[in-house]
């Protein structure tokens, strides 16, 4: 699935769940500097579609992903990380988005 189509699907899913998504959101805090494909700064929920096409692997390095992961485990923010090959079709990506949002709903304070 192409990044543009994947991001559109995710934005639609996240917004349907009540989040106010800002596209290309610049997150710069706690040593993490990354441009996320979609993020609600108020709810601190978003997504990042990592593709070679967008040059993401140079910015969204494994270290950055690990830092995001640590903060998610602490409940400080929630970002669904989609690696390019993991969302082969819209059905799988929608499934992932919906299950992720369900989990976030339970975890968010």
């Amino acid at each position: 699935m192409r990044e543009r189509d994947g991001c559109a699907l995710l934005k639609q899913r996240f917004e349907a769940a009540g989040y106010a998504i800002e596209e290309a959101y610049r997150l710069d805090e706690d040593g993490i500097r990354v441009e996320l494909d979609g993020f609600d700064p108020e709810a601190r929920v978003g997504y990042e579609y990592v593709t070679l096409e967008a040059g993401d692997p140079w910015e969204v390095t494994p270290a950055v992903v690990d830092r995001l992961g640590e903060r998610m485990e602490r409940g400080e923010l929630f970002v669904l990380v989609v690696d390019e090959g993991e969302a082969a079709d819209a059905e799988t990506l929608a499934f992932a988005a919906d299950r992720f949002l369900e989990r976030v709903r339970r975890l968010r304070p």
Partner: protein
Amino acid sequence: MSEKTYGVKQFLEAAKKQEAELRQEYSRLAELDAQDRARTRKVWEEAARALEELAAALLPALTPEAITRAVQLTGHQALVQESPIARLQAEVRALEQRNAEIEADPRYRDRVLLRAPRVGTLVRALAEVLEQRTVYQRTLETCAHPRLAHLVEVGYGTDAYAVAWWRASYYADWKAGDEILERLKDKKAFAEVRLEYLGARRADEEYAERQRRLEGEIDASECLEAERDENLRALASAPARALAKARQALGEHLRQTPIAALGPRLEADGEVGLLAKRWSGLEAKGAYLEQLSTEQVGKPAQEISEALRKLQADVVRMSRPKKAGTRFPAEKFERRFQSRAPRFAKQRERYVRTYETIYVYEDYHHCHFGSDWLWWDHMTHGRASGDFIPEVREFHGTHPDYQYQPAFDDGDAAAAVASADAGEIAGALTDPS
């Protein structure tokens, strides 16, 4: 008084007529050439068969006695030196030894026990393996999913699974796992599916290996049986093949040895002598006919082709406006455009008669091998010059005092000369034009 001349218009008309005449003759020669080349090929085929018959008569069997006689008659020492009998015996020994090895090999010896349809031990074992594989393959097919290999690799459904919940792949694994689990109604968790799948895969691999081994054993047994059958066929045909090979080598020796050297010895043996004369005559006939066609059909055809080329060039040259006023002296013009048809016809008729005379010749038995025997003279009754044939020219060069003597008796000669056909042939062959 002015000399008679011809103009360009007359030149072009005469050239057109001559071109038609040349083309017609060329076409007749081409037809004749094709027809006679085919007939000459048949003579060569007949000569080859005659040589086979001669070799068979010289070496009727592959026995020491037959070989000794063949060597005495032909001088072909290779028959003794290369010892076809010893070679044959060695081949037979090797084939028999190999078949003895095969027959002692359990894969051949127990072939029925191993490979009998439905009941052979290997056949039965293979059937069981295939049946087992069917069971495991059914499980593998039920579990088949594009993501299954990945799920197994990352340990999905086990404690080892470590994909973070905020990664999309976590959910893709989840979805795939559910899809597979749904197909196996008796399983409650993917961990059970995983165990069954891995067990079936391992078992199928083991059975596949057994299948390969059994098929290899069956194949080896079949190969041994086929090899033994082939060896039996080779054993059955070995004497005939060895004899044919020895005869072929003998034939090659005869072909390469001057007949003047061999002839008298061969002639001494009645049947062999007659066959040798026939073969020698047919070989000579083939060579004569081939060279006759080249000399009296091929060469004239080439000359006509060249004449046509020159005529066409002249027509182009004379068609130019600046040549319009050219005049040709009558004598030269008439000589050039005089019809060649009668001469062509005469040459062709002479060729046809010579060819036919040689082609129909069958009196090979009249031959007396020796230093003064020239087939050409006997085939043409000594009435045609064959010096365009290298063999005939060389013979005349090495036999300056040679005079053709008919091989048949006076009565036959008189009868031949008296016959109308012979007279006609003689006339044609001695025609100096």
